[in-house]
């Protein structure tokens, strides 16, 4: 369970988030949508304790991220990019994370297998393609077999096979009772994966609810998204 409560983030004079609230519930895939610069990444970074909120809270199972006892077994996160030093090999990267989380080395090989990186594990990350970097980020997120997954643009840069794999994988995770929060701006892809949708625009939530509720009288999620986020879009909801 992820709870975002009246979250405000200011950077200098710039208001990035102006009091957003939403939840991501267990057993469901929650899609977090918004145009570029709307505050998606900032929200996820605050949720993970990387950035500090100006006010409000972002809690994971009722606690701020830094107070989790076993962070990697609770939350797996993959933000933009691989999150690995380009000079290290993929395997070495996962191994130090496993060491930090007190996980056995065999678990590293398991996630490498799971994300299809076994053959590339000995290569330095700087030689990875965009898709491979993405897979490495996923592998790191899955290392602790977490209850909650937080993914930023998970299908960005993946090949069709990878996209399909992510979709089925996330559905399965949710069906077995896990929480999944993913941000994306690929509407078509999102409409096939998510149960709930949260749409953010310029730091404020403009719509939240189940996929059907948000689509409402629009013909598709994409239509609803544009109606809600475009200027002078009338009174969509």
């Amino acid at each position, binding site marked *: 369970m992820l709870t975002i409560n009246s979250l405000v983030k200011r950077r200098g004079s710039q208001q990035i988030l102006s009091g957003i609230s939403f939840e991501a519930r267990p057993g469901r895939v929650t899609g977090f949508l918004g145009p570029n610069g709307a505050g998606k990444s900032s929200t996820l970074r605050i949720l993970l304790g*990387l950035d500090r909120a100006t006010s409000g809270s972002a809690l994971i199972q009722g606690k701020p991220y830094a107070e989790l006892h076993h*962070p990697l077994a609770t939350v797996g*996160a993959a933000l933009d990019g691989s999150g690995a030093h380009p000079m290290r090999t993929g395997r070495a990267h996962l191994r130090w994370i496993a060491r930090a989380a007190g996980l056995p080395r065999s678990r590293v090989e398991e996630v490498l297998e799971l994300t299809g990186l076994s053959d590339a594990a000995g290569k330095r990350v700087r030689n990875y393609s965009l898709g491979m970097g993405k897979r490495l980020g996923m592998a790191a997120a899955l290392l602790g077999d977490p209850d909650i997954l937080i993914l930023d643009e998970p299908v960005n840069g993946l090949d069709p096979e990878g996209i399909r794999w992510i979709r089925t994988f996330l559905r399965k995770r949710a069906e077995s009772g896990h929480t999944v929060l993913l941000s994306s701006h690929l509407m078509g892809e999102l409409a096939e994966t998510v149960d709930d949708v949260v749409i953010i625009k310029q730091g404020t939530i403009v719509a939240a609810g189940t996929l059907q509720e948000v689509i409402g009288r629009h013909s598709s999620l994409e239509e609803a998204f544009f109606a809600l986020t475009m200027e002078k879009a009338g009174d969509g909801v």
Partner: protein
Amino acid sequence: MRISSGRRITPILGAELDKFRTLPLIRLTLTVTFILNIALTAAFTSVSLQETTGTQNTLNTGLASMGYLQAGFIILGILATCSEYTGGQIRTTLTAMPWRGVQISAKMLALAMITIPAAFIMAASGVLYAFIMLGDTALMTEIGTVIQTLAGATGYLTLTALLSAAVGAILRRTTPAVVVLLGYYFIVSPLTRDWLPGYLPDKAGYYMYTPPSVDAGNILTPMEGTGVAMLWTLSLMAAAILLYRRRDA
């Protein structure tokens, strides 16, 4: 949270050591520094042999390259902290180990665990080389002084690496950190020797590996030098930790 940080330190320290071990730049820096140090010591020794007047001092000749040797440890310290900010690794680090104060302290500890043996081996190999080459022309130094001086040199290089790591953590970018630190140690400090007080980190640290002599104007004793250098390192580390805990990653 506070109570359990003791139990947490072992895996975190292990992870930080793993990071150093698997970063080729760290190994490269140590190797290049070692080789260059021997080469420079060879140069200093040969200069020392040419100088016919007076007797040579094995210890002074062997440690003459300290001025250059410190550059390797400055870079090592910078790499230790700034490498986190390459490729977005800092996000991974802080999601795996969100206890920032503990994590960066463990990193500093891991760095010290690497620099202490490395610094000792490098300083000792220089002195050993000078001892072999100068042979009986050199003034023999008591073994006690040798050990004391080598310990001082090791301590100085370790403190320098830690101080550089702290500056690197504050600046977060490799290039500015290299410019600031090398600029200070190699340009500003030597040029302002007569103007600035002797309590700056490199000047105070100098006395850590320089035996107190009666004639020369040693401002500080080795112990005082150690104290002042340590104070600099600790305060910069404290500033780095404070900033690291507060700001957005």
